[in-house]
Each structure stands twice: as structure tokens, then as C-alpha cells.
């Protein structure tokens, strides 16, 4: 039993954290809601009770997943590049511009879609090159530079859409609509779940393979584990820092464009949608492992969907949902949470082993 606990300690801790988070949520809901039982049902079961809500989980998990793997790659190299939000936004804007600009060529749908996604990915990669290069070349703090780059990306993106691709016939600030041949198909009737979710999951598997089964992935992880060790071993640290940022940015870029092509079919954000920040959260909770990040993204999307249902159908305000979400994430990310229990079990195990050693010698 003790051995089992030690081996799966992280998993068990995550589950307990979620349960405590749930317990606190129940407490909060009882506190603020007149119909507490009903509200609880809306929050926890609501997302599963209709097809459109179930679809909602997957469609809102898609951009989070893209940004999650985009963050995981530089994080694996211990480069705290948090420029996913900017890369996501800017790539979506320039990608939209690109798609509209080439629409007159009448490309076949398949090629058009791939070209648009690639263009957006390249924009994301080039944009993320900047903080990576600054860090590798001049040791510029990557947290600061990537954070600032988000604001720059935001305003450049707005400028491109509002001044060059704005649909003047629409009643609000938005781009022209993308031609239908450039849409990512919504393939489950009654939901907005689109091909992007499949692309995102495929990307997660690709990135997993990349990190754990390729030379560059190995280099990225070794630099992340111990920078000095990597350098001493002959790994080109400069290359790894720059490339980890670039590759991460590529996936953030695809994520931004897939959201435009799959859900809105035009660029309509006037404020930054915040998926980049969610990506950082899921990357951290998923320990930068792309496969875990798939599940964490779905879990976060489930909480969000439950929150929306709660907001719509009960007297619990949406702000409470943010509180609950934060409590759960806080507990999961608290490294020292339950650490003393692990410690006590370790001590017991060590003492028992000692007795066995003694009696056998």
C-alpha cells in the first residue's frame, strides 16, 4: 500500500486536490445559492446533460490545448516564455489577412486550409523567435520580454484587422468573413466542435513524440533539467533556447487560426481572448507533458462549461466560478501540498527496509 502511494503520489495528490476543490465549491455554492442542490447539479452535471454543452467542452478545450502544448515546449527547456497569448492573437490576425488576400486565387479547399494554418503557424514561430533570441544572445529575461511582446502583438493584430481587413458592412469591428473553402468543418451537428480539435490532439501526440523520441526533444529536455550539464555535454544551448521558443510559437499560431477558421469564421476579437494564459495553466498542471495536457485542457473546459451553465440557469454569479476554478488550480499546483504525508510514508518505508536489512545481514 505504502509503495503504491509513493509511486502514484502525484496522481493521487492531483485527485485529492480536485476533490478538496470540489468540496470547497460545494460549500461556496451552498453559501451563495438559494437552490443549492440545483446549482450543484448545473455546475457538475450540467456540462454532460445536453449535446451542445458536451460539444462546448471540446470546442473550448481546443484553443487551450494548442496554447498548452505551445507553452510546454519552451517550459520543457526551462525557458519561461509566456508569449503564447500574443502569438495566438497575432497569428490569427495575420493568418486571417493572408487567407483573405489569397482568396481570389480560388485554391482547392484542402490546400487552402493547410496553407492558411501553416502561414499562421509561421507567424507564431517568427514572433516567438524574438524573446527566444533575446534570451539566448543577450540573456534578456524571457518572462519580461515575452510578456511585453504580448502587448505589442495585440496592438499590431488590431491594427492589421481594423485598418486593412475590416468588414465595413458589419455593425461592429471585425474582419471580412473567410471564404467557406477555408473553414474548418464543424463535424458534429448541433455543436460547434470542428476539425481543429482533431488537429490539436494530433499536435499533442506529435509534440509528445518530438519531446521524448527525437534528438532535438532530448536536447530541449536536458537544457531544461540542467543548463550547465547540457552545455558541458556539448549541446548547443543557444540553438535549443531559440528553437524551443520558435516551435512553441508555431503551435500557438496554428491554435489562433484554427479558432478563427473553426468557430467564428472571421477575426472578431477586440480584446485578447486569454487562451494563452489558460495554456500556461494547463501546461503547468500537466507537468509540460503534452498527453497529460490533453486531459487537463478538457478538465478546464469542463469547469468553464459548468460555470456557464451555472451562470445561465442558477442564481450563482459567474465570478464564483472563477473562484472555484482558482481554488482547484491552486491546490493542484501547490507543490508542497500533502508533502508531509509523503514524507511520513517515506520515513516508515525506510525504517521498515532497515529492519529487513538488519535481519537479513
Amino acid at each position, binding site marked *: 500500500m505504502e509503495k503504491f502511494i509513493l509511486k502514484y503520489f502525484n496522481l493521487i495528490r492531483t485527485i485529492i486536490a480536485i476533490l478538496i476543490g470540489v468540496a470547497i465549491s460545494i460549500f461556496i455554492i451552498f453559501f451563495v445559492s438559494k437552490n443549492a442542490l440545483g446549482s450543484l447539479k448545473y455546475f457538475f452535471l450540467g456540462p454532460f446533460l445536453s449535446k451542445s454543452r458536451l460539444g462546448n467542452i471540446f470546442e473550448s478545450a481546443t484553443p487551450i490545448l494548442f496554447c498548452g502544448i505551445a507553452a510546454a515546449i519552451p517550459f520543457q527547456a526551462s525557458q519561461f516564455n509566456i508569449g503564447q497569448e500574443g502569438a495566438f492573437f497575432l497569428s490569427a490576425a495575420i493568418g486571417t489577412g493572408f487567407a483573405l488576400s489569397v482568396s481570389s486565387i480560388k485554391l482547392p479547399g484542402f490546400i487552402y486550409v493547410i496553407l492558411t494554418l501553416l502561414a499562421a503557424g509561421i507567424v507564431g514561430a517568427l514572433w516567438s523567435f524574438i524573446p527566444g533570441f533575446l534570451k539566448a544572445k543577450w540573456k534578456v529575461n524571457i518572462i519580461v520580454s515575452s510578456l511585453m511582446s504580448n502587448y505589442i502583438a495585440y496592438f499590431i493584430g488590431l491594427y492589421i484587422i481594423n485598418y486593412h481587413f475590416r468588414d465595413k458592412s458589419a455593425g461592429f469591428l471585425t474582419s471580412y468573413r473567410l471564404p467557406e473553402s477555408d473553414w474548418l468543418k464543424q463535424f458534429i451537428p448541433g455543436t460547434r466542435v470542428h476539425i481543429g480539435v482533431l488537429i490539436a490532439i494530433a499536435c499533442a501526440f506529435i509534440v509528445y513524440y518530438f519531446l521524448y523520441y527525437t534528438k532535438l526533444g*532530448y536536447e530541449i529536455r536536458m537544457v531544461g533539467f540542467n543548463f550547465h550539464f547540457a*552545455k558541458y555535454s556539448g549541446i548547443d544551448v543557444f540553438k535549443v533556447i531559440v528553437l524551443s521558443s520558435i516551435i512553441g510559437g508555431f503551435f500557438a499560431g496554428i491554435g489562433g487560426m484554427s479558432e478563427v477558421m473553426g468557430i467564428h469564421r472571421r477575426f472578431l476579437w477586440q480584446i485578447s481572448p486569454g487562451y494563452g494564459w489558460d495554456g500556461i495553466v494547463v501546461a503547468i498542471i500537466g507537468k509540460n507533458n503534452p498527453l497529460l495536457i490533453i486531459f487537463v485542457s478538457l478538465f478546464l473546459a469542463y469547469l468553464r462549461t459548468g460555470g456557464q451553465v451555472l451562470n445561465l440557469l442558477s442564481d450563482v454569479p459567474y465570478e464564483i466560478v472563477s473562484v472555484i476554478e482558482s481554488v482547484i488550480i491552486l491546490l493542484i499546483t501547490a507543490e508542497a501540498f500533502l508533502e508531509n504525508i509523503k514524507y511520513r510514508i517515506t520515513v516508515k518505508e525506510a525504517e521498515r527496509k532497515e529492519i529487513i536489512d538488519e535481519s537479513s545481514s
Partner: protein
Amino acid sequence: MDPIISVKKIVKVYPNGVAANKGVSIDIEPNTIHAIVGENGAGKTTLMKILFGIEEAQEGKIFIRGKEVHFKSPLEAIKMGIGMVHQHLMLAEGLTVYENLMLGIEPTMFGIFLNKKRAFEIADAYSKKFGLDVPLNKKVKDLSVGIKQRVEILKALLRNIEIIILDEPTSLLTPQETEVLFKTLFSLRDSGKTIIFISHKLKEVKAIADKVTIMRKGKVVKTVDAENISEHEIARLMVGREITFEHIPKNENVGNVIFEVKNLSYKNDENVEVLKNISFSIRSGEILAIAGVEGNGQAELVEILTGLKKATSGNVLLDGRSILGLSPREIREKKISHIPEDRMKNGVADKAKIKENLISDRYYKEGFSKGQKLNWNYINRESYRLIKKFNILVPSVEAPASALSGGNIQKIVVARELSASPRVIIADQPIRGIDVGSEELVHNFFEEARDNGSAILLISADLDEILKLATRIIVIYNGEIVGRFNNVNNITAQDLGPYMLGIKREV
């Protein structure tokens, strides 16, 4: 006589599951020098940390002057009259000696202003009272290690300490500085203090201690009067078996010069000349040892030779061709291996798997990978082969390096570096902080590599290691080579000391 300190059945397990103390009981009599000896990892330092309030024990009791105590912090230990001088000295380098001495207990005027004159007078009075001569007005960073240590001891005395714990105090000292330290300790004992002396150097223990406690694997083996036990007996109890300290057999097949350093100089960022005109050469089948007190340019020299730093001038030649300024990978490609001084910083990535640590210099080579794809099957096989060959104790190659003991981590580094079929091995403090068993193994591997024609550059602060392995010895002081010994047959540690201190020079 009643013991001044009495620890009873102390048990301490660290969070990673290592049991450092397994029911340790020791009585320490007042007014004695009590040595605690044991290999690295025997639990000496842990016990002292518990006694000084840095760590808390899970079980057991501590009595000071017959009264039970529970220290939660070093501050409480100091109040009870216990002081500790750490292996790595803890002084504020930028402050003067007397400022360091009075740190935290400064006399003040009107409760807020520092009374520097009074502080100086108090420090001076104590220095005279205990006969510990220190340059009160000098900055600590300008002092030698021996003097810094004296400052630390005086600092403890100023806080009315009755019991002084010294953790491996001689590890950074030359033989001559050690003698001075011992004189100080004797006079402190004679003035009524109790001294606990942690060491794994047997000669010193014999020379200084009244009582000796021998620890092994977290337990007390024996406590005896020092005069009733021989060095050899202590060593046997410490290790649990017979060991030898003899010079390894000579290699008759010394070949041509393959590695050469010519007039190498290096200035650091502060424009200090750390290395001055260093020249030496190593022939194949030879171990050239560089002796010297740490911090005299050895670290920089190694970093330059392995491509981690750029030299200011001079040249490094392999087979007559310059390798200066090449990247670490290019240098490794030329079959130069590097066992780094700090294995946790450079030698391994402790959170990475053992197999990932074993391939860090060759993962891109034929077999280990094809195109971009890593061949994990091949890597697993190779890892198990190395683990077997180098006798590394691991739970599995999938475990992180941090799950291993210091000795086994060092064996991982040695396995990787020596299995690269190196022509030149640069080994910087290869046995620091590892147990005697691993130490012997590492030395055997060096001997084997030497006999197979590798040229080995050994940098060590451990003179016993140097005298055991070296074919030739050079001594470095303040970035310069000050002594060369081509015949090591009759050289002793005492002969090297004056060169290491910069008192003597022959070049």
C-alpha cells in the same frame, strides 16, 4: 565526569528516504577534543546539524549539561552555548573582519547608531584573550582560507560559545595551515572549551583528538580514547574492511606527448589575472596531477581546456594541433573527456533518467539515433552495459539520477566519460564527497585508462589522492605553476605544502 552533551538514540530520515542517523548515541565530555569520524554519508554532518538546530530529528533526545533541549533553530543552539564552524565558511566577504565578528551583536549609541570604535575594541579584546591573531581591519575577501576559518572560530567565541563544532575544518587547508589550526584548538581546549571535530582524515584525528567516535552507515561503531586506537584500526572500523593507501603500480609504457598547454593566460571579467603563463604537457600513459589549494585557478584552467571558457592568450595543443577556442562538442569529438569538479552542477541532470544522463555526449551518434529519431532500445542496452561494467548500483535505468547516492552519481559521470574511449581525460576532484569504496573503483578505472594509453590530467585538493595516482606533479598557486615534481617516489604531503601556500617556488 558528567557529559556536557549527551545525544540518545537519534533517528533522522531525509524526505528522499535516506536514513542518515539510525539510533545514534554519543556522550561528549567537557573540556575535550572529541573527533567524530566516518566516511562521507556516514551521518556525521547530519548529527551535527541536529545538534546545532539546523535539522530536526524524528526520534531521540539531546541533553546539554543534563538538561533536555529541543532546538528549532541555530539561534537556540547558540543561546545554549553551541557554535558551529561550517565546512564552507559563512562570512560576509565584503565586510571587514571586525564587522563580521560583531555582526548581529554590534554595540550601539542611543540604541540606533553603530558604535564602530567600541565594536573594534571588543573584537580586539577577544582576539587577544584567545590568542587568535586576525587582521581586524582587512576585508574578509582578501584573507586566505586559514585566516577566514580563524575569524569564524573567533566569531563563535564572541557569542560566549562553550562548545564548538568544526565540520571538516581542514578540507580546504594546507598541511601548514592545519598545524596552526590545531595549535589554536589545543589552546581553546586548555582554556575550558569543548571541541567537536568532524573529519574523515585519520592522521588529523590521531594528532588532535582526546576521544574518537567512529560512525558507519548512520550508526556509532565505537567511541574510544584516541590514544588507545591506531590509525589503521580507525580506518578498518570506518570502512568495515581492510583498505590500502599505496601508490598504484607504475606504467612502463609511457608514450609520446599528446596533450600540451603553452603559455596559457586568462583574465576574468574583473580583469584579474587568474591564470598566468601556464605550460605543461602530458604523455600518453601518464597521470599528471595538479596540486593546489582550491581557488588558485584550477577551475578556470579546466573550463578553458574543455571549451567552457575562452583563454586570454596562449595555446592548447592535441597532437600538435591547436584545440583552443573549439566548442565543448568539438573538443569532445577529439576524444577529450571531462570529469567535472561539481558533478551536480555539470556532471548530471539530476531529474533526468539515468540512461539520459549516460548518453548526453553521444545521443546524436550512430546507433543512438537515426536521423532525428532516438533509438531507445539501443540506448537501454548501452546503459545497462555501462552500469554493469562500471559497477553502478541503480534501481533501473529509468530512475532519475537523484535517486542515487553521491558515489553512484559520480560513477555515472565516470562511466560516461571513460567509455568515450578518451585519449585525454581531464578529471577535476574526481573523488570529492564519495565513499571509500567508490573512490577505489574510480581510481582503478583511471589506472586502467592510463595503462591503455590515455593521458590523464588530475586536479585534486586531496593530496592523498595525488600521491596515490600521479606520475608527475605540478603545484599551482595564485594562477601560476610554482613547483614541478617529475619524480614522485619520495614526495610527501609536507613537501608540497609550502608550494601550495606560495611560500616556496622553484620555477
